[in-house]
C-alpha cells in the first residue's frame, strides 16, 4: 500500500520529494547463490584466474538482478570481456610495479609517487565505470567527478589534516562522501546531499569510545595469555600460534568497531540524499543490529573455513535492503539516460588489485 511520505525536513528548503514509498526488496537466497559461488571458485581455479571475470559479472548480476523497487529490478551491464581486459592490464601493471619496487628501490619510490598522483583518477574512473554499469528501468547511473576535486578530497585534505593532529579528519571524510554523492546521477537527474559536519564528529567520537572500551576488555583477556607467554618453556610452542589468534581477534575487533561509524554515516547519508522532486531515500539501521550482523558473519566465516561466504553475502544484502526505504514521485519514469557510450573497466580493476577502497562509508 502506498503511503504519503512526509519529509522530516521542516525548514524553508524545498521538500526533496512529495512522493510515495516504493517497496524495495531483495529476493536472493543463500542456497542459490552458494551454487553460483562454488562454481565461480572452482572455474576460477581451473582456468588459473581467467574465469574470475565471468565470476565477478555473474555475482554482480545476481545481486543487482535480485534487488527490485516494486517490480523493476536493477541490472548490471558490464560484460566479462570488459572486466577481463581490465584485469589483464591491471595484473601486468601490478607485476611491473612489484618488480620495480623490489629491484630498483629508487625508481620504485618515484613510482609510488606517480601512483599517488594517479589514485584520484583511478577513483573517479572506477566510480564512473561502476555507476555506468548499473541500470534501472533501462536508465543508467553516472558519475561526473573530476580529477582536480578528487585530488583535493582524497589526497590534499587528508594530508593537511595531519597538521591539525587529525582533528579535522571527520570533516575530510564528510568531503569525500559529498564528492561521491553530489557527483552521482541517475540518468539526467543529479543526486544532492545535505550532509552535516557535527554528525561526522559524533560518529568519529562514538567509534573511538566504543573502540576504547572494547580495547580495555580485550587487553583484560589478553593479560591471561601474557602470563602464559612469560613461561619460557611455553614461548616457543605457542608463540606464533598465539600471535595468529591475537591478530584474528584484533581484525575481527576492528571490523566490529568500524561498524559503529559505518552504520551512523550510512543512515546519515541516506537520510540526507535525494534527487530533487523525484527520489528520496531513508535508512534506519540500528548500530547494535549491524554489530550483531558483522559479528555473526565473522563467526560463521571462521568456523566454516569460509564456506559460509555465500550465506553471509546474501543475508547482509537482505539486512541492509530491509532497513532502507525509497520514495519516488509518480513521474519517475520520465527520467531519461543521457550518457554517451563506451567505458573500460581498467581503472576499476587497477584500484581493485591495489586495494584502493572507495566504497561509501
Amino acid at each position, binding site marked *: 500500500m502506498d503511503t504519503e511520505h512526509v519529509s522530516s525536513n521542516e525548514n524553508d528548503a524545498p521538500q526533496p520529494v512529495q512522493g510515495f514509498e516504493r517497496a524495495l526488496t531483495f529476493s536472493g537466497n543463500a542456497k542459490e547463490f552458494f551454487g553460483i559461488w562454488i562454481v565461480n571458485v572452482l572455474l576460477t581455479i581451473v582456468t588459473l584466474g581467467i574465469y*574470475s571475470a565471468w565470476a565477478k559479472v555473474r555475482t554482480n548480476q545476481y545481486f543487482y538482478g535480485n534487488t527490485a523497487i516494486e517490480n523493476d529490478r536493477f541490472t548490471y551491464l558490464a560484460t566479462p570481456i570488459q572486466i577481463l581486459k581490465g584485469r589483464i592490464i591491471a595484473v601486468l601493471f601490478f607485476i611491473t610495479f612489484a618488480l620495480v619496487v*623490489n629491484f630498483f628501490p629508487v625508481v620504485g619510490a618515484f613510482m609510488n609517487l606517480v601512483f599517488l598522483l594517479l589514485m584520484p583518477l583511478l577513483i573517479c574512473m572506477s566510480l564512473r565505470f561502476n555507476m555506468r554499469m548499473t541500470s534501472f528501468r533501462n536508465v543508467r547511473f553516472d558519475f561526473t567527478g573530476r580529477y582536480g576535486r578528487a585530488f583535493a578530497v582524497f589526497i590534499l585534505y587528508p594530508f593537511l589534516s595531519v597538521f591539525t593532529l587529525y582533528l579535522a579528519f571527520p570533516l575530510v571524510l564528510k568531503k569525500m562522501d559529498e564528492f561521491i554523492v553530489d557527483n552521482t546521477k541517475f*540518468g539526467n537527474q543529479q543526486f544532492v546531499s545535505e550532509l552535516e559536519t557535527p554528525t561526522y564528529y559524533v560518529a568519529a567520537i562514538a567509534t573511538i569510545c566504543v573502540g576504547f572500551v572494547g580495547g580495555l576488555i580485550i587487553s583484560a583477556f589478553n593479560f591471561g595469555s601474557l602470563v602464559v607467554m612469560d613461561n619460557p618453556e611455553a614461548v616457543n610452542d605457542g608463540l606464533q600460534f598465539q600471535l595468529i589468534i591475537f591478530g584474528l581477534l584484533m*581484525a575481527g575487533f576492528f571490523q566490529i568497531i568500524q561498524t559503529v561509524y559505518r552504520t551512523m554515516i550510512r543512515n546519515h547519508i541516506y537520510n540526507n540524499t535525494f534527487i530533487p522532486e523525484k527520489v528520496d531515500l531513508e535508512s534506519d539501521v540500528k548500530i547494535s543490529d549491524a554489530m550483531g550482523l558483522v559479528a555473526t558473519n565473522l563467526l560463521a566465516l571462521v568456523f566454516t573455513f569460509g564456506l559460509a561466504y555465500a550465506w553471509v553475502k546474501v543475508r547482509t544484502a537482505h539486512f541492509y535492503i530491509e532497513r532502507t526505504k525509497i520514495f519516488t514521485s509518480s513521474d519517475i519514469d520520465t527520467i531519461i539516460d543521457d550518457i554517451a557510450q563506451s567505458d573500460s573497466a581498467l581503472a576499476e580493476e587497477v584500484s581493485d588489485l591495489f586495494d584502493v577502497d572507495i566504497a561509501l562509508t
Partner: protein
Amino acid sequence: MTKAYKGAYFAPRSGKSIDVQIEVNDYYCALLSDDGEGVTQCNLIDCKLTSQIGQIPRELWLPDGDKVVLAQGQDLSSLEQAIKHNGNGTGVLHWLESQKKFWLLSLLLVPILFYFIVTFVIPAAAKSAVKVLPHEIALNIDNRSMDVMDRTLLESSQLSLDKQAKLSRQFSRLVDKLAMSDKSLKLLFRDAPSIGANAFALPGGTIVVTDDLVELLEDHDDAVMAIILHEIGHIEHQHGLQLMTESLATSIMLTYILGDLDGIAEYLSGIALTGLQNNFSRQLEMEADEFALSMESKTGISPMDFALAMEKLSGGENQPDIAKYLSSHPLAKDRIEAAKERAKNSDVAD
C-alpha cells in the same frame, strides 16, 4: 516458423515501459504492442540475450540500447537457439550452478586443485619465469640490497684479517672445485648483531656471512663452508627471484579466487598467503640443503660438516612440530637428521 514471447519493452535510454509481444522468426524479431501496433523490429544477429542467473528474469538487449525484460515462466529455448551466436553458451553455467552433485564435486575439487596449483604449477611456472630474467638484473639487486643493508642492518666485520683471508681462500678453492663458471660468486663478512649467527645469499652471487656465525663455528671451517655451499645452492637455483615470483603469483591468485573481502576475511587471506610463502620457502631451503649435501665428491665438504653446523646453529633447542608448518625453514632437527642419514649412506657406498 514464428514463436511469440511476452515482455516489457523499454525504449532506448528511457525509463518508460510498455507491454509487448515479441515475434521471433529465424533471423529477425518484431515487437508488437498490446493493441497490435508495431513497436520496432531488428535482426536477431544484433541482439543479445542475458544469461540465466538464479531466478532473475532474462532480458533481450536490442541493438539501439532498447531492451525487453522477458516475462517469467516462458520456454525460451528456441529464442536461445536463434541467438546462440552471441555469447549464450552460458546456459551450461546455470545448469552447473543448480546441480547439488556438482556442488559436492566442487567442494572436493577446490582444495585438491588448489593444493596442486600451489605445490606444482606455481613453483614450476616461477622456475621458468626466473630463467628468462637477465643476470644483469640480479647483479643490480645485489648492489642495491648491499647498499641498503650496509646502511641499516650490517656493520663492517670485526673478524681478524687473517681469519677473513683464510676463509676467503677456502671459499675460492670451493668455488673452483664446483666449476660453476656462469656465476660470479663473492663472499663478504659483516657484523650483524641484530640477525645473529647467520648467512644469506643474494641473487647475483653475493654471499654474506655474519661474524657471529664464524665465531660460533670457530675451528670448524668446513662447517662454515657447508653453510656457504647451502647458500651457493640458493644462488645456483635462483631461489631469491623464484620465491618473489611465487609470492607475487600466489597473492594475485588469492585476490581473484577469494573476491572482495574485508576485515577478518582479508586478515585470514593474509595468513594464508604467509603460510603459502613459508611453504615455498621451505621447499627452497630443502633444495639448497640437497645441493650442499650432494657436493662431497667435488668439494670434500661432507654431510657431517653440514650436520655439525646445523647442530651448532640450532643450539640444541627443540622446536615443536607445529612450527614445521609456520616457519620459513624446515625444522633444524629434520635437517640434521637428513644430513646424518646422507653421511651414513655415502659411507656404505664407499
